[in-house]
Structures are given as structure tokens and as C-alpha cells.
């Protein structure tokens, strides 16, 4: 059992949890993820690591309440427990001096990009961060991003913060104004693809952190297979980061829809149980 030692709401439906998992914290590196399983009936869900503290033994996760598992997680409180929490998994981000790095993140991807830019900053890269959100209320971690970025831009759908438009509008401008050595994008698949399309014209190396469906996440099942440069790769072993220009995006999109109907059934059932006053949490002490 893994204790939730801190819970914070960052914006509507986006939560910041610190989970006491000292063994995971010890070797956690930027770009890696964990798998959690909320209780004995839960599914195994991957979440990117948003930070870790070896001394205090915690791992930071930031997630958006979307499906059943994240909604269930969101209803837990400080002091409650998660049944399983395994990691760190996947290959860490390659941290070195690239030069100028543009970090592009959308939605909850903002949390995931934070440890990456933190490490890249330490190795003397110039960091230009571009954050996309639907509106300014949904922007998270602004202070932390500011601390790790040389320049920080926002794009919102309604123009309530930064430009009114998409992250790619800013990205296009940044790369036309200066020499960029690496683009690192994380967020919804469509956003990552759009970023890749923009950088492709100028042949700027671009990495994306893919988020396919996973089951074991240790190279055993092949659920997370993605096609990179025409070859099948396993995101949990070979990734989650890949060269964005080589990803078969159409296939990723369709594989992400695999269990849409079941996910809805699961979520509806959970919401119903909440209405009945019972979230079914055996995790409460």
C-alpha cells in the first residue's frame, strides 16, 4: 500500500499528489512513468512522474480527472492509500547539452514537462517553454515553469492568457526567430503531432512522450506497441520517448480509442456509485 501524503487541486479537475514510495523515488528520472492500481479491482494505469524526493521518499504525480481510475484517484484524500504503485518505468530522457530547447506542453502534459526542463536547465540548455490550455484557469504550475524556463509563453483557446491560438502558432514563430536544437513535446497526441509537423519543415530534432494503452508496462504484453519508422516498438521498453517525425500518428490515434466504450461504462458505473454515496474505496483507513 502506498500512502497519499499530500493532495492539492491545481485547477478544475487537475490534481497534484505526493505518494510515499521511497523505492520508486530513489531511481526516478525525468521522462519516466509509474503504473498505479487503485485497489484489488483496479486497472493498471500509467502516469508520467512529475517529480520525486529521495530524502522524503515521495513521488509526485499530477493527473486530470478523466476516466474511472483518475476519477477514483481524485476522490481519495491525504492519508488514504493506493494499492499498487510501481516504477520508475521506461527509458529516462536523455539529458545533455543540446543548446536551445523548446519545450511544448498541453493540458496535464505541463506537469510532465517540468522534470524534463528542470534537468535540461541544469545541463546549461536555454529553455523556451510553450504551454497550451483551453483557458487561463486551466494553466498549472506557472511559478515552477517560470523558474526553469528562460522564456515562457502561453496559448489559450479563448485568449484569456497569452495568445489566442495554439501552441504551434508560438512554436512556428520561435523557430523562425532563432536556432533551436531540440523540441520536446508532451500532451495530447494531436498536439504532439501538430508540433512535429511544424518542426519537420525545418528538420529540428523533436522528441515526444507517447501515451498508448498499457497493461503490464514491463515488456511482456505488447499492448503499448507503436509504429516508429515502419517498425513496431513497445512504448514501455523502447520509449515512452520517440522521434516525433517517425511516429505513425494515425495508428496511435486509433489504438487509443480501442476501449472507448468500455471506459465509458466503467466511468458511468463509478459515477453512479458516487451518487449512491459509495465510491467503493477500500483505500480509506
Amino acid at each position, binding site marked *: 500500500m502506498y500512502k497519499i501524503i499530500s493532495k492539492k487541486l491545481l485547477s478544475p479537475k487537475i490534481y497534484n499528489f505526493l505518494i510515499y514510495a521511497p523505492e520508486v523515488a530513489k*531511481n526516478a528520472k525525468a521522462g519516466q512513468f509509474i503504473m498505479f492500481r487503485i485497489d484489488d479491482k483496479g486497472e493498471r494505469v500509467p502516469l508520467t512522474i512529475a517529480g520525486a524526493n529521495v530524502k522524503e521518499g515521495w513521488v509526485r504525480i499530477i493527473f486530470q480527472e478523466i476516466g474511472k481510475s483518475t476519477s477514483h484517484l481524485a476522490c481519495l484524500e491525504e492519508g488514504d492509500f493506493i494499492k499498487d504503485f510501481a516504477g520508475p518505468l521506461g527509458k529516462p530522457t536523455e539529458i545533455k547539452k543540446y543548446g536551445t530547447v523548446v519545450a511544448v506542453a498541453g493540458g496535464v502534459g505541463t506537469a510532465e514537462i517540468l522534470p524534463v526542463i528542470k534537468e535540461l536547465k541544469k545541463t546549461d540548455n536555454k529553455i523556451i517553454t510553450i504551454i497550451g490550455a483551453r483557458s487561463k484557469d486551466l494553466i498549472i504550475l506557472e511559478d515552477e515553469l517560470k523558474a526553469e524556463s528562460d522564456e515562457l509563453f502561453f496559448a489559450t483557446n479563448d485568449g484569456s492568457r497569452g495568445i489566442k491560438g495554439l501552441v504551434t502558432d508560438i512554436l512556428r514563430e520561435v523557430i523562425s526567430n532563432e536556432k533551436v536544437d531540440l523540441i520536446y513535446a508532451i500532451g495530447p497526441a494531436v498536439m504532439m503531432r501538430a508540433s512535429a509537423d511544424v518542426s519537420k519543415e525545418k528538420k529540428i530534432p523533436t522528441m515526444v512522450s507517447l501515451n498508448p494503452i498499457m497493461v*503490464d508496462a*514491463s*515488456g511482456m504484453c505488447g*499492448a503499448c506497441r507503436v509504429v516508429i519508422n515502419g517498425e*513496431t516498438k513497445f512504448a514501455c*521498453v523502447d520509449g515512452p520517448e520517440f522521434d516525433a517525425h517517425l511516429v505513425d500518428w494515425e495508428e496511435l490515434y486509433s489504438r487509443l480509442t480501442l*476501449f472507448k466504450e*468500455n471506459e465509458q461504462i466503467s466511468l458511468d458505473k463509478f459515477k453512479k456509485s458516487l451518487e449512491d454515496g459509495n465510491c467503493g474505496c477500500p483505500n480509506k483507513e
Partner: protein
Amino acid sequence: MPKQRIKPSQREASIRKTDFKQVGFGFTKEEAIEEAKRCLQCLKPLCSTGCPVGINIPAFIKQIALNNTSKALTILKEKNNLPAVCGRVCPQENQCEKFCILGKKSESVSIGNLERFAADNAVEESATVNCVSKNMKIAIVGSGPAGISCGADLLKFGYDVTVFETLHLAGGVLRYGIPEFRLPKEILDKEIESLKKLKLKIVLNTLIGRTKTVQNLFDEGYKAIFIAAGAGLPVFPKIEGENLNHIYSSNEFLSRVNLMRAFDFPNYDTPIYRGKNVVVVGGGNTAMDSARTALRLGARSVKLVYRRTEKEMPARSEERIHAKEEGIEFLTLTNPVKFIGDEKRFVKAAECIKMELGEPDASGRRLPVEIKGSNFTIETDTVILALGLHPNPILPSLTENLQVDKHGYVVIDENLMTSISGIFAGGDIVGGSTVISAMGMGKKAAIAINDFLTKVQD
């Protein structure tokens, strides 16, 4: 004429294919005693020579004949740490039973069923390990058959043993791979519990290589490590359309059902698609397990596509017979060449080609060759690929100086020691193939580790 072999009763195929309960009932006490009495108690028993873990087979059978089931289990457990599992899933027909002298003239003693009977029916004697503690820590990577078997034997030598498991439950392939109707998880839980009583420590949610490295383990004071990380990376055929939706590796399909209990969705959170026209590709036990699982999830038709003939199938005959009884259709000398999807990239058909057998290949089996122009399509909404596995690459790739061969298998010497002193390996990661061969390697490794540590101390 010797008496006929007694066959335990089985559930009707038409009934059992609708649920996940066990196929066979196992011997009743009367049946077990009668069958045990068929054993000739050979002075030089050949059956034991066919057992990868070297069980004293006549001795345990004798105790069953004497109605002393608990004593029978004690004898089994001297050599076999998972008798209830092995009694069910070992290919006895190719091992102990193959050598039984009775088999020459009539039918061999039903050793597997007797083992299962003893394991299921004995009143467990107090679990203790009679030895002096050596006060030395050993780490095992992986809680599958190789890891558990090695760990349990090391306990008996007096070591302090910790098994690290990546998943949230112990058992490895016994947990995620073998279906409930062949090995109820309750039985597996019981076996693991009894090992925990012997003070076997199992740490879950820990991927050695990532959560901790091998070096971390040595730094934490472990004196030797046994790597039994198992298989990984399912083999895909590298043909068009293999990543369409509802095309699964057998590992994913079976893990969803066995480990995550997706057959009970939405009571359990993990979903599975209940295909109506299922195609399974492969001819091993995993292919049979996948086909029969698909049937139990409600498939109207399950076709098993295999490129050789039934004679060459690696699956146990018992599994093949059960599968056919339940209505699995075998399409042998057939191989898929591509999968066809609908506009949303969900699989809708498998294009196959007929094969014929040519010259024998490296495995001694005749190599299947395509018959040009014999292509045909099968309508399907779910495809399960049971084409084997590559060894799990994670730990080897993260352990400096750990040598692997060109296929990715960890290289070991005759004592199962790897290229790094103090690190041993066994099971699928070195190229084992069955539960019992993995267990045999686990036992051998335990002896080798004990020898190694004794020498180091001297």
C-alpha cells in the same frame, strides 16, 4: 493384464466452455488409492529419471496407496515446491509418465493426477524449515516458476531469500498466462502462501533494472542474485495490419483475463473485447489457452490457425483434445499473410495462405512452405497472436557486463552462473520453455548458489 488406468472425471465440454471453472475434477480418494496401487514400485524407477525436479515418484505414490496423503505431499515437497501447479500443468506424458514401465504394455500410471490429488487433499503439516540460518541474503528476480522454485530451495539451505516481482501479484506466467480453467488462482495463492509461511519474502511492484539495479541489490547486502525475469516482448509476425485494433498478443489477451480479471468487467476495471469470430494464430499451449479463453468470453467461432500439421503442434495432447471437444476449429497448414481493417482500423478479416510441409528445419520439424495462389480470407473481429516470446530485455540491457546471446537470452555456464560472478539465471530468460523446466533450473541454481557462497566463504 494390468488394471486399466483410472481417468478422473471431467466436466462436459458443452458446459465447461461457458465458464472459467476447472475442466477436470481430479481423483476422488478411492480413485487415487486404486490408481496408486497400479504402481509397480520398481526398484529402479524410470519415471523419476523423467522428472526435471527429480521427485521420488514411487515413494509418494506408495503413501497415497496407503491412504497417507499428507506423507505423500511431504515427499513431493522435498523436491517440488509447487506440486498442485505441476500436477495440473506439467506435460507428464513427455516426462515421468513416458518412462513408466506400465506404459510399455498398457497405460502408464497417472502420475500427474496423483500429484494433483496429494497436493489438493493433504492436510498441510506444519511448515518449518529444518536448518540452521546462514544469515545471508539472496535476491531472486521474478516470482514465476523458476524464481519461486529457486527461492524455496534456498530457504531450505538456510538463506534469507527475497523475491522481487514487477507485477502486483506473484506467480509470473502462472498468474498472468495460465487460465483459471487449467490452474485456479486459488490453488496458486495457496502454494504461494505456503512458501511465505516458510519465510519466503516477496516484494511486489519492483522492476529490477529500473526500480533497483542489480548493483543496488549487491549494495543492499545481497550476496547472490538469481535472475528469472521470464519472457517478454511477444513475437509479432511482421505482416501488414498486425497492429489493427483487436489484434492482441496472447500475453496481452491472457493478462487482461487472468491477471486483471477482465472477464468480470465492469466489476473489475480492466476491459476486454468479447470477440464473436476469433482467430488464434499458433500451435502451442498458449494458443490453446487463448482459444479456449476466447470461447469462454462468448465467441461463436474460434479458429486456430497453425502453419504446420497438428502432429507438429507444441501444445500438449490433452490441451488439444480439450480444445477440440469444446469446439475450437483447427485450420492447420495455414498461415496469415495480412490482416484487413475497417475504416476505423478495427480488424475485420485475416488473409491466410495454405501451406505444405517441405524439408526438416533446425528444430527437426518439416518446414512449412506457402502454396502459391492458395490465399483465402477469414472474417474475424478479434485476432490473438500466440507466436512465442523473446526474452525480456529490460534487465539485461540495464546490467553492465551481463552477457546475452544474439537472441537476447542471458548466457549461463553449466552451473547457471552468468557472465557476472554471483549472478545466476534460469527460466525463460535463458531459453527455458515449460513451467517444469523453469522449476528444474531454479532448483539447480539453488544448489549452484549454495556451492558458490560456501566456496566464497571458505
